[in-house]
């Protein structure tokens, strides 16, 4: 009996000790912050991110960073954590997704006080280290909940060497653009590559033409109109007719509507089409497919005569960070973010991975020199897809994208497209 009692006491003591030793935030023990990343561990940028973590831990011995490389299932994986109260400090993903899922539901921490304080190793306020407009695009009212880092916009890419050989230059207006497309078609080269299987790539044409004709915010307003009557504005019909013309004239590469990603962008880098309208992550994605002699150049979506939008009006896709409001170690998380956004890491990301970074003074990515300059001189910034996919995601997915596919594939006329949008908008908002 005595032996059993001693054994039982020892067992309970060992268990108690184990629990105590494994507990975080012991007096004098390191603080651990949880970082839920939207990157998969096998992606080429992750070694740099791991290096940033290691450097931060070395510079801050009292803080550990526990990274989970969740990939694009990041928001799905954070849900049970939030519900169970085990809230990670940091997440990163597209600002549109973070806004739609977390910021809109008051789950994120407002960073304005921290942004007003100096950046790491500098006297400049952290907020003043960001390029113009980068912190404005995804504000929640007047508050900043998003820290953008890797930024993208949407441009037309072309092979600089091909254009030089043909004596062509980047068009500035839409009329110049269609004339250029005619010339390529006459030369036997498809003017435009397109991954027809990606519906949100297809809508780039309509979305950007609406911006060039009607300015920022017009598309979001029309999509949110429960009566559908906003679609009667002639600017939308003009944008739709312009897309219709591209399809009718056969400017898109043959068979594109049946493409599975990444067939369209592979066509482009292999010289089967002259240009492609796509986001500026393209050079990073096609790094291993570029043939010798290919020179990545780009131009912004051309302006439309009498339109409100300017060439330097920049749409932003921002791969961003948020700090979760209910996480226990928010101060340490912000400290880590400030450490992350230092020039040496920004430059390494830009040079080695062709990424554009939201911080001023970052080196230009070698394959995105034109887009980087565009970001520096942006006359205005707008949310990705004019904010429709984050503010009205179900409408975006079930009304606008399917209708736009029919337009760009040449299945409906511009008038039919607008009529469909009006009808489907009323049905959607009144269900």
């Amino acid at each position, binding site marked *: 009996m005595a032996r059993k009692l001693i054994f039982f006491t020892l067992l309970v003591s060992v268990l108690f000790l184990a629990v105590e030793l494994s507990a975080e935030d012991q007096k004098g023990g390191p603080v651990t912050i949880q970082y839920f990343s939207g990157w998969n561990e096998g992606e080429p940028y992750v070694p740099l991110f791991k290096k940033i973590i290691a450097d931060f831990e070395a510079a801050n011995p009292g803080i550990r960073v526990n990274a989970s490389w969740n990939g*694009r*299932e990041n*928001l*799905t994986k*954070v*849900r049970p954590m*939030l*519900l169970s109260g085990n809230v990670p400090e940091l997440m990163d993903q*597209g600002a*549109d*997704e973070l*806004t*739609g*899922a*977390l910021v809109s*539901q008051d*789950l994120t921490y407002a960073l304005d006080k921290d942004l007003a304080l100096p950046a790491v190793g500098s006297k400049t306020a952290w907020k003043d280290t960001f390029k113009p407009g980068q912190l404005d695009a995804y504000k929640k009212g007047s508050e900043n909940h998003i820290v953008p880092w890797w930024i993208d916009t949407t441009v037309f890419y072309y092979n600089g060497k091909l254009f030089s050989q043909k004596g062509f230059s980047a068009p500035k207006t839409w009329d110049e653009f269609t004339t250029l497309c005619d010339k390529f078609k006459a030369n036997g080269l498809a003017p435009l590559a397109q991954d*027809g*299987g*990606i*519906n*949100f790539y297809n809508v780039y044409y309509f979305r950007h033409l609406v911006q060039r004709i009607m300015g920022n915010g017009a598309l979001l307003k029309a999509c949110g109109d429960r009566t559908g009557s906003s679609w009667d504005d002639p600017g939308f019909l003009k944008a739709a007719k312009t897309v219709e013309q591209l399809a009718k004239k056969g400017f898109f590469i*043959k*068979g594109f*509507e*049946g*493409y*599975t*990603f990444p*067939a369209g962008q592979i*066509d482009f880098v292999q010289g089967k089409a002259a240009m492609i309208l796509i986001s500026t992550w393209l050079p990073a994605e096609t790094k291993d497919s570029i043939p010798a002699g290919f020179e990545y150049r780009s131009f912004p979506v051309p302006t439309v005569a009498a339109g409100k939008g300017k060439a330097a009006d920049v749409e932003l896709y921002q791969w961003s960070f948020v700090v979760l409001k209910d996480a226990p170690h928010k101060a340490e998380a912000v400290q880590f973010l400030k450490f992350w956004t230092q020039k040496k890491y920004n430059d390494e990301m830009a040079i080695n991975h062709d990424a554009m970074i939201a911080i001023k003074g970052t080196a230009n990515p070698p394959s995105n020199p034109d887009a980087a300059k565009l970001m520096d001189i942006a006359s205005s910034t707008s949310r990705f897809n004019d904010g429709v*996919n*984050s503010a009205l*995601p*179900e409408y*975006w*997915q*079930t009304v606008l*994208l*399917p209708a736009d*596919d*029919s337009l760009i*594939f040449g*299945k409906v006329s511009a008038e039919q497209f607008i009529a469909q949008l009006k009808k*489907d908008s009323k*049905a*959607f908002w*009144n*269900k």
Partner: protein
Amino acid sequence: MNTWLKRIVVPFLAPAAILYLVFFVFPAVQSLWVSLHNWSGFTRDMTFIGVRNFTEALKDKTFHRVLMQSLGLVFFGGILTFCLSLFFTGLLGGKGRGKGFFRAVIFSPNVITMVALATLWGFIYNPRFGLLNSLLRALGLTRLAEVSWMGPDLVYWSILAAVVWIYVGFYTVLFMAGADKIPIAFYEAAKLEGAGNLRMFFTITFPLLWDVISMGIVYWIIDGFMQFEFYYAVSGSFPPIQIWTIPIYVVILAFGKRTPIYRMGYATAIAFYLLVIVTLLVTLSRKFLRRTAVEY
């Protein structure tokens, strides 16, 4: 059963029953509760809205479209799968040289993961260098070789053909297992009477296989409505609306991904409609396809 045996059954059944209750029944009941709420899944705040999710689904044009697409898959896919499976059953039934090899070949898609099969069919249907268009070009059928098999007009039928190809093997093996039980004496007697292979198939094999076929129909109804992995993977995780099945629509509504929809309550209501539809069709098929058991 004596008392001792009755007592011992309970503890042996208890673990499986408990697991089933905890991981299947309880979540299903909880899902019904979720479907009565407006809920994103990110917070504990659930707003009770009664049956509004269910009434919204009845007016949802996208749900109507997706339902028709799923019904089409079950109906047309079922007819094609069963016709081909019965054809192969007739062809490969009984003993013979090489029949084991062909059975294995027909069944082989069932041992390969759906993602790998989706990659294969993405390659087959590639308009530029895919297997199908390359073969058509080699045969001189250049007009057909320019068809966009994954374009909006044909993608539904192209994927349906691939799904039929995947499932034919399973149902062939199922029917052949049933056909192997039919006594050879019946066929010998029929041959003596002068019946040919086709006559024997329709007068002996098919009627005596009916119980297996009706069971197969039940399996297919469930399989057909639950189609997700292949449809999702073949489009590179961006399925066009033309190939949305009900499970794909539920996932898009509940889990968002690139488009942050996150309507757990509404998605669960749609999933409940799926449960009701499948249960109704399975019940009806069991009722109308049942017949008196034949013993031999």
